[in-house]
Structures are given as structure tokens and as C-alpha cells.
């Protein structure tokens, strides 16, 4: 290879060397486990099998005794939007205002965040990063956990719209109240709630009128970025991720989505109760929060958050997991494993952080399993990736080998060797 070509490839940075991973126990997720090799060409999985032909010049990775899984996907995070929770200057998830569909999370993702290599080193290759403010917070982004810029990281820069469905309860729990020391009557709480839902409906109605007006293309039509951002939602092209925790909120959210004819993904479902039937009937996918949470009520079963994923599975609902965090994204696999301890089949847990997430976010042609034609987002492990004691040995994102070093491993080496 001449120098010019090498420099060109290095400069592009995106063109990966071909790789052959040999003798691995391959877990395709969408098919049966096999022992063999995977060929990666131009960042894509070109071949899988017991015997494969290595492309000329390909890098060989000997993986005898190791396991090859697709990289894991965290379906709800604030990765890149926060660095130190208590420092206001490092927070970029929460904008002012109630309705901000035009906000683009992707542009505020800090590719140099220390959280990215930390999460990556535990097998997370992609995450959804979400905004957190107001009612409509903005556009969520599906990103790769590697890249020099947010452009290089972007997989789906506007994968969904974030919507926090209004809450009926004023304070916490089943009681009604406006926080500490302030008692709010049920009637007042209800009035406020209905007012908020009404405002949301009105915003959607105005967006629809804007859509119609734009289609009519009148002279002097003024572009409005807020309403412009709502068009793909109204056209059902972009889903809306709606947070709804308890039964009543979930029912209201589902009903609202049907009335407004928008496509939704439910998020942070914790206490669905009878609403499970509604979710199932309308085939709405769910992003579950981590299982490592206390039960909502003091008389709930002690294991209510551990058993929830298994209940959704039994009800036939498609779900993925989100940590709704940044520094703790690395614990995604362990949150999922706790659901396995309490009844979720292990294969389903793995699907929830791979193929099901890819399906929910409309990227199953690229991510979520080891299949020919998909991006080579792969992790090579010395065991079950859902077990804490397992080590991630190597990682590939779009076929490029990714460095698993991070701030923590660097400090470890430095201080372990302190004289």
C-alpha cells in the first residue's frame, strides 16, 4: 500500500481494516449459538460460519474460548449531556420552556465526556441520549459510543421526540399534594392536570394546522422551527417517547396517543397494573427503567421492580431497557440480569439490550444482532456479559476496534504503582 493511500485511509478514519474473528463462541441473538468465525469488511459483517474465507490483508483476532456478542444498547441515557451531576455548568439536558420539539440533543453531546469510554468498557456500544426538560423536551439521538465528533457518533440523530406526559399526582405516592407542607385538593390537582393535557393537545392541534398551512404553500408562509419539528411526528414517521410511570398515567398516555394519532414508545413504566392489557392491545413498545429501584409503595412486594420485566414478557410486550443515567450506564447489563434472577428468560434479557432495542428504534437493519449485512458492533467477552465478573476483552464499533481504556483504568494503573 503506498503512503498516499495509507494517509488517505487514516485521514478518513471511518474506513476500517477488515477483520476476521476466529474460533469464537458466537451468540447472534437472532439465531442459534455457533462456534466459528466472523468476517468484518468495510465495517459490516460480511460472513459468519464455522469456516470462512479471510479477505486478503485482514487482521486476525484469535478468540478461542471467548464469546462474541452484539454490542449492547442503552435505550435511555443522558450520555454526553452531563459530566458532574452537581455542577450546573456541565448540565445540558434541561432547557427552559414546555414545548421544545425543535431542540436537537445530538448537537450538545460532548464526544470527550469521560462517561463514554467508561460505559463502553462494559460492553455498551450504542445509547439513546435524551433531553429532559418541559413537556416536549426535544429530539432524542441514537449514538455510537465512539467518534471524534457528534457527527461521527450519530446513528439516528432524531430517533424520537421526548415527551413527559403530565402527572396527575402533585406530590409523591398516591397522595395528592403540592410538595412539602402544601396540601392540594384532589379537585385542584385534577384541574391542573387537565389544564396541562389541554395545553399539550393544543400544541399538537397548532402543529397540525401549521402542517396543513405549509402544505397549502401560501405566499409569505413563515417557517416556525417548533412546528416544523412536529411534522415527522404527525406523519407518524418519528415516534414519541412518552414517560408514564403508573397505571393511570400509562392509560391516559395510551389514550392520548390514540386520540392524537401519534406513534409512541412508553418509558419509565414501573407500576403498569391493568394498563399492561392496553399496552399489549396497541402493540406499544416499552423502555423499562433499570430494575435496581425500590418498590414505589411501602406495601408493594419487595421484588416488584425485579419481576416487572418478566411480567411484560409474559404479557407479550416488546421492551428494551434504559438506565436514564450517564455515569451508571456501565451497569446496564447488571440491571437486566436482576430481571433474569426474578423470572425473565436470559435470552429475552439479552434481546432487550440488543435486537429489541434496535427494533424499537427502527435500526434493526444495522444494529442489535450478529447477522450478515449488519454493522460490526461487537463485543468479545470471557463469559456472560450480564454477569459482573465477566470481562469485556475487545470491542468493535462499525468494524473498528475501540480502545477499552478509560479514566478509571488509567487512574488504577497510576495509583496501583504509586511507590
Amino acid at each position, binding site marked *: 500500500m503506498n503512503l498516499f493511500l495509507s494517509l488517505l485511509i487514516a485521514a478518513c478514519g471511518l474506513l476500517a481494516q477488515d477483520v476476521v474473528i476466529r474460533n469464537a463462541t458466537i451468540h447472534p441473538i437472532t439465531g442459534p449459538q455457533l462456534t466459528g468465525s466472523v468476517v468484518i469488511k468495510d465495517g459490516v459483517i460480511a460472513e459468519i460460519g464455522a469456516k470462512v474465507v479471510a479477505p486478503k490483508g485482514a487482521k486476525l483476532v484469535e478468540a478461542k474460548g471467548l464469546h462474541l456478542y452484539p454490542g449492547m444498547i442503552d435505550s435511555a441515557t443522558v450520555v454526553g449531556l452531563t459530566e458532574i451531576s*452537581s455542577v450546573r455548568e456541565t448540565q445540558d439536558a434541561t432547557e427552559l420552556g414546555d414545548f421544545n420539539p425543535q431542540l436537537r440533543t445530538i448537537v450538545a453531546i460532548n464526544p470527550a465526556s469521560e462517561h463514554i469510554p467508561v460505559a463502553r468498557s462494559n460492553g455498551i456500544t450504542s445509547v439513546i441520549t435524551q433531553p429532559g426538560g418541559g413537556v416536549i423536551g426535544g429530539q432524542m439521538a441514537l449514538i455510537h459510543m465512539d467518534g471524534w465528533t457528534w457527527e461521527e457518533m450519530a446513528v439516528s440523530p432524531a430517533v424520537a421526540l421526548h415527551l413527559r406526559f403530565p402527572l396527575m399526582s402533585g406530590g409523591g405516592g398516591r397522595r395528592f399534594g403540592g410538595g412539602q407542607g402544601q396540601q392540594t385538593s384532589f379537585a385542584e390537582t385534577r384541574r391542573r392536570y387537565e389544564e396541562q393535557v389541554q395545553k399539550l393537545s393544543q400544541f399538537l392541534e397548532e402543529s397540525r394546522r401549521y402542517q396543513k398551512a405549509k402544505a397549502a404553500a401560501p405566499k409569505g408562509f413563515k417557517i416556525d422551527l417548533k412546528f416544523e419539528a412536529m411534522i415527522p411526528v404527525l406523519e407518524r414517521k418519528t415516534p414519541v417517547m412518552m414517560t408514564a410511570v403508573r397505571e393511570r398515567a400509562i392509560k391516559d398516555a395510551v389514550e392520548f396517543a390514540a386520540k392524537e394519532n401519534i406513534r409512541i414508545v412508553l418509558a419509565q413504566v414501573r407500576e403498569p397494573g391493568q394498563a399492561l392489557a392496553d399496552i399489549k392491545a396497541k402493540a406499544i413498545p416499552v423502555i423499562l427503567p433499570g430494575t435496581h429501584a425500590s418498590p414505589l409503595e411501602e406495601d408493594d412486594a419487595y421484588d416488584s421492580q425485579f419481576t416487572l420485566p418478566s411480567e411484560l414478557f409474559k404479557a407479550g410486550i416488546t421492551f428494551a431497557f434504559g438506565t436514564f443515567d*450517564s*455515569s451508571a450506564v456501565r451497569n446496564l447489563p447488571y440491571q437486566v440480569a436482576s430481571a433474569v434472577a426474578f423470572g425473565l428468560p436470559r435470552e429475552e434479557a439479552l434481546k432487550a439490550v440488543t435486537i429489541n432495542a434496535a427494533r424499537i428504534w427502527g435500526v434493526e437493519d444495522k444494529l442489535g444482532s450478529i447477522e450478515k449485512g449488519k454493522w460490526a458492533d461487537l463485543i468479545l467477552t470471557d463469559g456472560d456479559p450480564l454477569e459482573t465478573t465477566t470481562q469485556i476483552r475487545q470491542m468493535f464499533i462499525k468494524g473498528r476496534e475501540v480502545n477499552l481504556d478509560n479514566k478509571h483504568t488509567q487512574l488504577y494503573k497510576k*495509583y496501583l504503582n504509586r511507590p
Partner: protein
Amino acid sequence: MKKALRWAVLLAPLAAFGADVLIQNGKIITVTKGRLDGSILIRDGKIVEVAEKILAPPGVQVVDAGGQYVIPGIVDCHSHIAAESINEGSVSVSSMVGIEDVLNSEEVSIYRALAGGVTTANILHGSANSIGGKCSVIKMRWGKDTAGLLFEGAKPGIKFALGENPKRRGDADNLQPGAVPRYPATRMGVEDVIRQAFTDAKIYQAEWNDHRAKGGNTLPPRRDLKLEPLVEVLEGKRLVHAHCYRADEILMLLRVADDHGFKIRTLQHVLEGYKVAKEIAAHGAGASTFSDWWAYKVEAYDAIPFNAAIMHKKGVLVSLNSDSAELMRRLNTEAAKAIKYGGLSEDEALAMVTINPAKQLMVDNRVGSIEAGKDADLVIYDKHPLSNYAKVQKVFIDGAMYFDRDKDLSDRAEKEARRKALTEQQRQQQKKTAPAKPAARRPA
């Protein structure tokens, strides 16, 4: 109403075994004396024998572990459950207050901690003050009253706190309008508060010593409830558990203690402990840390999950704690992180949630391992306790079964029925007692 529900629905303590208990057919991880497949004989709440084969004495209650794992009850060296209040934040030194006075034996976190295999916990005052309140060691004896929770004979403790938390109230920019900043506002001030308090305590101690030396014939010094616990610290009668993060403040406290001739029993959180592990080991302080929390504040930005392993390798007695009612329920898999991050052995990892915290609390003669003579505080797991797929099946404290997953499951339908009945009863009562609508006022 809430209270009635809680009692009726949750507080159904399991029938304690009055008789001797024999746990058979267990994969026993003793933590201190290796592993064996065998039995544990319990008499009067104490382990009397651990062996491959033990003949069942007559009248003994036999529990078949069914080939599952048995480990010592988990000890959490840092918790705030079962306490009605945590911080007396109005003063920089709040050693006059204590957690024992605000323990709540009905808090459901106790049951949930049990269901996560925890049998002993150190309940600490908060971290708002350089010198905080007194701490209590409890056992998760769910169903017993407050006095029944206390770990009898455990040395009392006291909370210290360094860094961001104690200086927060000195930060005038971040206080409520009109609030007066409280000293200290810097790490320098934190040192000063602690040095001054111990300087005062030494004078107070000398006054009492002098009074006693004179046969009590002089006028006794005026009692000072703030300084008394600090005198106990100086005399080795009370253990110091110090909340800290950064390497500089850790070293500062060790030197203050050295200068005043007392010991720091445990450094709590101690997230930068790995930077001064040598100095911590030399002082003889224990370290009770999180497995992998980081980046939630500036002083936690250099926190690394290898902290426990580095400190352990450099000779520090290390435990992994929860500081959270939720995390408390899965300290067994927190221990697994010491294997992942730093390559410790399974026994070293399990020790960090059993015998090590027991040593730090100086209750290792009673709990923390499976050995003859110790309290029968035991946990049965269906899978290896370091696996994320394991769940707790049964928990014994003092030989009595306080948690049984089978029973928890089989009781659920009945509890739900009782909950509904009570809710309905409450609803009816509210209807009856609801005031009648006031009659429309007639114009005068």
C-alpha cells in the same frame, strides 16, 4: 391509616424457631474457613458446628438447603434506613444527638434489606457536620421493637464528615435568601472545627479526671453532652466513622487523629482512598467504600471502581457499603465488582460485605463468617451469591428465620386481600364521618 396498613400487611414476622436448627445439604461459604458441602448446627441462636456430616440431634428443626449456597449474613457498614431523621445540620458539631433516639423498627426498608441478605447494618447520622451525631449498629430483626433491633454489645460510633457536604452550609451563594452561612465554608475550616472540638474535649476530659482523682470530693464539672462522646473517642470507647472523598482531606483527618492520639475506625466513601492507601494502612483505619459510584459531584469525579481493590492490595481493611436502602438489597453483587475491577478472589470479594465490615464495627467475634461460636446469621441463595442471577431464599438471624421467600410469595394473596379489606373499611369510615355539605347560606 398508613400505619394500620403497614402493620396489617407487612408486619407478619415469621415464626421463630424455638428449637435447635440444622441446616443440611448446603454449599457453605464460611468466608474465613474455606468452603464445604455440608451442614450447620444451630443452638440457642449460635452456630455450634459446621461440618460435612452432622447427625440430627433429637427434636432439631431440619432445614434442607437443597444444595444451595449458604453464606454469613451480609453486614452493611453504611446505611441510613430505619431512622426517622438523619441530619442535625444546625451546628458544625452535633455530637450530642444520636440515631438511637430516632430508630423506627417499622420501616419497610428493614424487611427489604433482609430480603437482600443483610442481617447487620451500621446506621449513621448524616454528613452535614464536620462532627456529626452518634451511630447505632442494628440487626434486621423485623417484627421486633426498636430496642430489639440494636446489636447488643456493639461499640457505639460517631459520624464525622469532610469536604463538600459539611462546607455546603457555609456557601453563602447557595443558601436560601436570608439564611446565615454556617462555619466552615472550606476544607481548612473543617479541620479547624475538628481540632477545636478535640482540644475542648481534652480539657473537659482533664477536668473530669481531676475530679475523679480527688475522690469525687470536688465540685463535679458541668456535664457537656457535646463533648462526652468525643471524650469516649479519645478513650477508645466510641468508633469514628468519617465521611470523606478527596485524598487531601483523608490525610488531614488521619493527622488530626494522630495528633490527638485517637484512631479513625473507618473512612466512609473514601473514594480517593486509593491515592493515599499507604497512609490509611499506616494509621490503621478501615475503608468502607462504594463499588462504583462516581461523577455525582466534583469530589467524586476521580472515584474509580478499582478503589476497593487498590486499598485492599495496599493493606487496608476494606468493606463495600450501600448508603442506600435500594443498593443495600444487593451488596452480594456489589462484592462481585471487586473481582471485575482489580481481580480479587471470590473470598476476598465476599469478605468485603461480611467479615471485613464486621471487623470495622468490631462485631467480628459475633458475625461476619460461618464459624462455631458465632451468631447464626445466615443467608441461603439459590445460586452463587456473586452471580447476578442469584436471589435470597432464606435469612436467619440468631438462628431464627426472618425471611423466607417461599413464605413471602405464598402470603401475598392473603396480604393483598387484607389490604383491600382495610382500604374498603377506611373508605366506608370516611363516608360516614365526612361532614355534610353546608347548607346554602341564605341572604340575611
